[in-house]
């Protein structure tokens, strides 16, 4: 079992606790040295579900137009981190978030950005492909209409271009009115990526996007991620170290310490993989511990 994925975390979220999102006031503009290069500046982020602390005071900057691979063992809060970045934590019962996340210098936890607009800017790809059980076309229509695009031709155009960008157009162009879940798992996942791209986001969050796929589909999705990394900021959670090596420009390793998810080490992929600073990282990369 690949540990707790986003859905099961949301489903099994603790009941009863008060739902709170506590945002600290913005004290100083973060990352003032390189203001253009970081999409997200996370400082002192703590996420808890009732008594369980999933993430404990994490500070991490995520570079623009790069792929940040988030690695670490199961249950160390990697998925919780993704949930914070598009504020899907609002929907987890009993989830309490504190700290500060700046995106384009705006505090997204403090409500400086409308949450639906935030989610339009930040697409999320789930572990298990989840196209709506509707036609392929309708999978695009639904979110696009929600964001005010009603013109049929425009929808058609966006759908075609994103499907082309994900390499799916040739495979599905004759069956756009067929149910999306008749596609193969890999196709479904690429469809989900295309659907997220159709909203012209700045960033894509991917929660182990390949772990439910066969090796060939997995490879196709990886290639897709590589082709997207020039234009989008991508954060990808993965259990697969070699995948992290292949895709990541940056790497963040999380670990479960005293029952709390903590950030062990982060930095450019070459540095983390070739010259890890932390002993834990060394051991983990050698496969000595898991």
């Amino acid at each position, binding site marked *: 079992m690949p540990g707790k994925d986003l859905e099961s975390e949301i489903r099994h979220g603790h009941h009863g606790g008060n*739902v*709170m*999102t506590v945002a600290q006031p913005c004290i100083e503009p973060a990352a003032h040295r390189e203001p253009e290069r970081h999409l997200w500046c996370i400082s002192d982020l703590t996420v808890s579900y009732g008594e369980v602390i999933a993430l404990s005071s994490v500070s991490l900057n995520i570079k623009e137009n790069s792929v940040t691979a988030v690695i670490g063992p199961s249950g160390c809060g990697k998925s919780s981190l993704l949930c914070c970045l598009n504020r899907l934590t*609002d*929907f987890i*019962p*009993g989830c309490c978030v504190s700290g500060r996340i700046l995106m384009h210098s705006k505090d997204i936890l403090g*409500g400086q950005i409308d949450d639906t607009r935030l989610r339009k800017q930040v697409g999320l790809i789930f572990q298990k492909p989840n196209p709506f059980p509707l036609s392929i076309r309708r999978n695009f229509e639904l979110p696009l209409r929600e964001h005010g695009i009603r013109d049929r031709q425009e929808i058609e155009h966006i759908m075609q271009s994103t499907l082309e960008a994900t390499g799916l157009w040739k495979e599905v162009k004759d069956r756009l009115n067929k149910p999306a879940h008749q596609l193969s798992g890999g196709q479904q996942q690429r469809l989900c990526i295309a659907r997220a791209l159709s909203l012209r986001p700045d960033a894509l969050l991917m929660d182990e996007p390949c772990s439910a796929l066969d090796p060939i589909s997995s490879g196709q999705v990886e290639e897709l991620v590589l082709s997207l990394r020039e234009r989008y900021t991508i954060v990808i959670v993965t259990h697969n170290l070699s995948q992290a090596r292949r895709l990541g420009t940056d790497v963040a390793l999380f670990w479960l310490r005293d029952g709390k998810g903590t950030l062990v080490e982060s930095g450019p992929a070459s540095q983390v993989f070739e010259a890890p600073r932390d002993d834990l990282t060394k051991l983990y990369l050698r496969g000595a511990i898991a």
Partner: protein
Amino acid sequence: MYLRSPARASTVLSPMLIGAGALALLASALIAFIFFVVLGEAMAALGEIGLWRFLTDASWHPSSGEFNLLPMVAGTGLVAAGAMVLAMPLGLIAAVFVTFYAPSPVATAYLRLIELFAGIPSVLYGLWGLVVLVPIIADLAAPGSSLLAASLVLALMVLPTIALIATMSVRSVPLERIQAARALGFTKASTMVKIVIPSARKGLAVAAILGAGRAVGETMAVMMVAGNIVQVPESIFEPVRTLSANIALEIAYAMDVHRSALFVSALVMIAFVVLATALLEFVTNKQAMPDVHPD
């Protein structure tokens, strides 16, 4: 389900929430509303006749000012009890049969048919009772329309409901428990009696309560075969009149206090329903049971 943080609580109060919430309140207030409408209609009789006389009057002759409901209460109770005495064991037999004894195609077909019979309108059971069953009973003992006929027809009507719920609860007995009993050398029959039925008792209680509720409330089929004479029967071959049949027979021409008295008998039936629902809540303690619908 979704919960939102207090920071965004204001967005929760959307028109949708208000609209759907209003509908839910409306729907859940409906039972109270029905009760108050019936109570309102019954007030005249309760004021004029008083509760006591419904139990102590010589008989039920509304035209001559006699309002004793007891014969009808007894009739309802006897007919329903007779039906349950027949239907409960049969329902249990059907449940054990389809779960443990029937080959699976037979079991599936059997359940499909039982589901079909659960949906047959009561008036058609009544029609069969009137045309087929009553003459047969009349050959045994006149007049045929009797407590026995009503109980038999009613038993047939509630049997599908009881059998379906009993099947559900027998099927939900954990397999390990049954295998453990078999491993301990219990015979199939004693596993049934000592393990399966006690384990399923909660569901069986639900089946009994829902079946009894249906039996008490049923009107048409009973009215067609019970003979409808106001009396406490002395044998199962004598005619009886149930509360619900009494209402259906007299409401068309009842006026003033008489009409109001019929609403009093409806109150009695509502009281029974409240009791049964409370009992059901008590027995199931919710959550513990799979969804069971009275049908």
